[in-house]
């Protein structure tokens, strides 16, 4: 029951947010008709364009019509390029999703062990070192980091290509190698932030009575460590889920630096062309991803936290 209500509320949020987004794209200072038809278009031509696309109707009516046609014809076609927005997204979305997934895995692989080590060695040198590094990681602007990484690892050392993603056809090895720098540019901030969170949880848990109980029973250190991890995980999962959603935002910036043909290119091109349906579709997809990852995090948390499960 909890699952159903949680999913329903996520859906409701998505509906409201998409309506908000829809309204924003209709509040533009410039009519799409003017953009498409140019400055010489007559008033009649403009009216005809708006009537054809239903732009003369009220905002709620337009939104209802837009939602109604979603299952049938998807996001429709772009006013500017005339191409199907769905096709465009089908090309660009997987690129970004792959980048974000690699980023996410990199983040987990970095943040969990670092946070654990820092928490378990509180106020000794590994902790101090990790804290300094994580402070730097959360303070560095990702796109600048990207420029530095390109300079060092691609231009100077030549280990990886400076821009673009090597297609999978050229071997998964080369493909993954080309993903490392952009993924790292995004991941560093999250490794810093999540390892700090993990460290704080571990320290809090180490001070709990049940850890003292475990020690008083002579439990192995590895077993005590497992006690700590199991309890530190639930809060970590919810923040990690949120981070996964946020990573799409950074991907927009980092893809630009690395010239990766993902959502970034779709969105930024749409912005320069004032292609409002395209902007709307891209942002909606990212927002849906964000809501979905939060939902997933909540569900996972429900599964691993016994107190929630039985509540």
């Amino acid at each position, binding site marked *: 029951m909890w699952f159903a209500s949680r999913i329903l509320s996520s859906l409701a949020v998505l509906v409201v947010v998409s309506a908000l987004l829809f309204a924003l794209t209709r509040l533009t200072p410039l009519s799409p008709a003017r953009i498409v038809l140019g400055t010489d278009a007559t008033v009649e031509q403009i009216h005809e364009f708006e009537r054809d696309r239903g732009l003369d109707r009220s905002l709620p009516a337009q939104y209802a019509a837009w939602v109604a046609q979603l299952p049938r014809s998807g996001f429709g076609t772009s006013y500017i390029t005339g191409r199907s927005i769905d096709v465009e997204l089908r090309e660009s979305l997987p690129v970004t999703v792959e980048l974000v997934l690699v980023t996410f895995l990199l983040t987990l692989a970095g943040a969990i062990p670092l946070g654990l080590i820092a928490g378990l060695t509180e106020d000794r040198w590994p902790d101090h070192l990790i804290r300094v590094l994580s402070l730097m990681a959360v303070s560095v602007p990702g796109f600048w980091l990207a420029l530095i990484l390109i300079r060092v690892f691609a231009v100077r050392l030549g280990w990886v290509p400076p821009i673009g993603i090597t297609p999978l056809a050229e071997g998964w090895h080369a493909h993954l190698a080309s993903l490392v720098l952009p993924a790292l540019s995004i991941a560093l901030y999250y490794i810093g932030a999540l390892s700090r969170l993990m460290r704080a949880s571990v320290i809090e848990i180490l001070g709990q009575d049940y850890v003292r109980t475990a020690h008083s029973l*002579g*439990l192995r250190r590895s077993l005590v460590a497992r006690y700590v991890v199991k309890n530190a995980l639930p809060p970590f999962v919810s923040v990690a889920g949120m981070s996964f959603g946020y990573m799409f935002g950074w991907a927009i910036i980092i893809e630009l630096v690395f010239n990766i043909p993902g959502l970034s290119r779709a969105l930024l091109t749409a912005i320069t062309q004032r292609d409002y349906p395209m902007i709307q579709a891209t942002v909606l997809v990212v927002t849906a991803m964000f809501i979905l990852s939060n939902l997933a995090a909540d569900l996972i948390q429900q599964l691993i936290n016994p107190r929630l499960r039985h509540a």
Partner: protein
Amino acid sequence: MTAPVLSLNDLSVAFGQGTAARTVVHGVTLQVRAGEKLAIVGESGSGKSVTALAIMHLLGRSGRVVGGSMCLEGEDITTIPESACRDLRGRRVAMIFQDPMTALNPAFTIGRQLVDAIRSHDDPGSRAAWSEAEQLLGKVGIDDPGRRSAQYPHELSGGMRQRVLIAMAIACRPRLLIADEPTTALDVTVQAQVVALLRDISATFGIALLFISHNLDLVAEFCDQIAVMYRGRIVESGSTEAIFTSPRHPYTRLLLDSVPRPGRPLRAAAPGRLTGNRSEGVCDFLSRCPLADTDCTLRPTLRGVGAHLSACWRSA
């Protein structure tokens, strides 16, 4: 008479380093024999819990033993390496803490935690450990152990959790069980049940019991010996009967008087508070003592008075 399971000789414990160091336990000497039940009684801050943690080697990073020695079954355990501590804890000494609500790991079932405790010394294997766990739950008076062992701590009542903690503590048959205010956080009716359980366990398994409490009534009910602590020192010790019938130290008398009884006016345990500055060499109880005299500017040591020991010049 058998050799004591635990003997503390002139044990002192301090927290902090250098000039910030503060000694909180001063020269505590006591013995507990197999099957015997010794109570340490005192108000909060008197050093009774610290004494217990010192025995467990659980003082943490800032605390350490600064004097005296601790012997467990004749073996000196005052300074042992961290690796030996694990052998000591659970197998030879176990401890039950005050708050059963927080002392169990919320993320694991109680069966799992009990099995972990069983398997951490002389691992009998998973299957044997699980059946052992259910037996233990039965022994501490938990009905339907099979179902209970699959439950999480938050599904159990406070009394039930304390029973589980007792089961975990005796899982590896320790020689000594330390119970630090095990009933303080529980309802009065449940308190009696837990105390009865501890008495049974001590008798059945011949476990020496060190019972820490501030509740004299509770202690009187089932402990053989009592040590009264004040400001890190034992000020009076002896058999329960001797202490209750003829308390010698004025602090003990005040403690006994502070227990409400029908038909007797209630008195405060002792005027004043623990926060006063300690003057070196002076009797610690001086500022609160109704019998204080010029003799008391010199700290008294424990000496035999009748059937027991008291640290007071005036305890004739």
